């Protein structure tokens, strides 16, 4: 693969996530705005078949997804690593009732992080999700994104599980602090 193609692939992983959401029949997408998800959020907002629901806190999205499934629709939840901490009690809803919960989590605090305040929750994302009986799919490179996302869709809706795709900070790139 030449350098130009390689670049294109590295930059378009949000589009491949979007394609997976469409193939998976996702009709509601809840999100707290996040730089790492900005392209995917834009794609969802521009799509007529997807209801985009901006949230004030991530736990709202856990409840939204449960309501969607009760009514026969599939939802997905986009958040940053810090949002996982906000969700912990609401995960009880997904676990007790076995509601499918499909999450795409962009990581902070683990790779070339400038802001130390992101580190504590970043380090807790995987252990917390595991304790909450979630199935975790960690993605580090662009070519892993689509297959992990497909697997998570299957696991969430096929088996009524919490499935989380974790998008590593090395995939997203570091935040530019001075312009």
């Amino acid at each position, binding site marked *: 693969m030449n350098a130009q193609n390689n670049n294109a692939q590295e930059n378009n992983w949000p589009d491949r996530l979007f394609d997976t959401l469409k193939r998976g029949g996702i009709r509601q997408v809840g999100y707290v705005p996040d730089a790492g998800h900005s392209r995917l959020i834009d794609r969802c907002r521009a799509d007529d078949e997807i209801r985009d*629901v901006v*949230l004030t806190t991530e736990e*709202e999205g856990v409840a939204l997804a449960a309501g969607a499934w009760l009514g026969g629709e599939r*939802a997905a939840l986009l958040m940053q690593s810090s949002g996982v901490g906000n969700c912990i009690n609401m995960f009880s809803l997904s676990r007790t009732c*076995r509601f499918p919960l499909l999450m795409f989590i962009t990581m902070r605090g683990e790779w070339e992080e400038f802001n130390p305040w992101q580190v504590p929750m970043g380090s807790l994302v995987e252990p917390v999700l595991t304790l909450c009986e979630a199935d975790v799919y960690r993605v580090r490179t662009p070519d892993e994104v689509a297959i992990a996302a497909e697997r998570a869709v299957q696991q969430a809706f096929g088996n009524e599980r919490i499935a989380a795709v974790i998008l590593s900070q090395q995939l997203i790139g570091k935040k530019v602090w001075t312009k």
Partner: protein
Amino acid sequence: MKLERRAAMAALLAGRGDDLLVVPGLGSTTWDAAAAGDNNLNFYLWGAMGGAAMIGLGLALAQPKRKVAVITGDGEMLMGLGSLATVGIQQPRNLAIIVFDNGVYGETGMQPSHTQSGADLLGVARACGIRTCIDVHDEAALADLAQRLKKLDELLFARVQIAAEEPPRVLPLRDGVAIKQRFRAALGVKP
């Protein structure tokens, strides 16, 4: 004048059709809904405090041809105040959020809630862009709310002023998976 909570719930749900989906908040409003008559289209909450309005939103968006009533307590609503801002953006025409407000946390020993000291849930809902906000303080207003629920065609928020009392518990089904499955089956949603 304060309304009696069991009678208020019974009045709101009397003669409900199968196009009304009910999400009662954890604790007393779940017991009230059970006391009004078990129904496959009740999604009883025993937990997930602060999540009732958002469950109602997801359900209302998924089922635009049916009506969704979230009926919860002031403490539960206070824990999810941000969801009123989220609902205000979405403006589903088939969602009613009804708060039974007694100004106390009844399940935990009647400690005063914020609404007793000035927090105004109707004001919050209005400020979040919910245009129809109703204060229900007597039988006539309750009957009007019940009528509005039957032909719901706008996003609605109501505060029902109820007395702080604790009628005997009426406990519905407790198994979350079972509550979910029978709700979806009653809706005719594919497994």
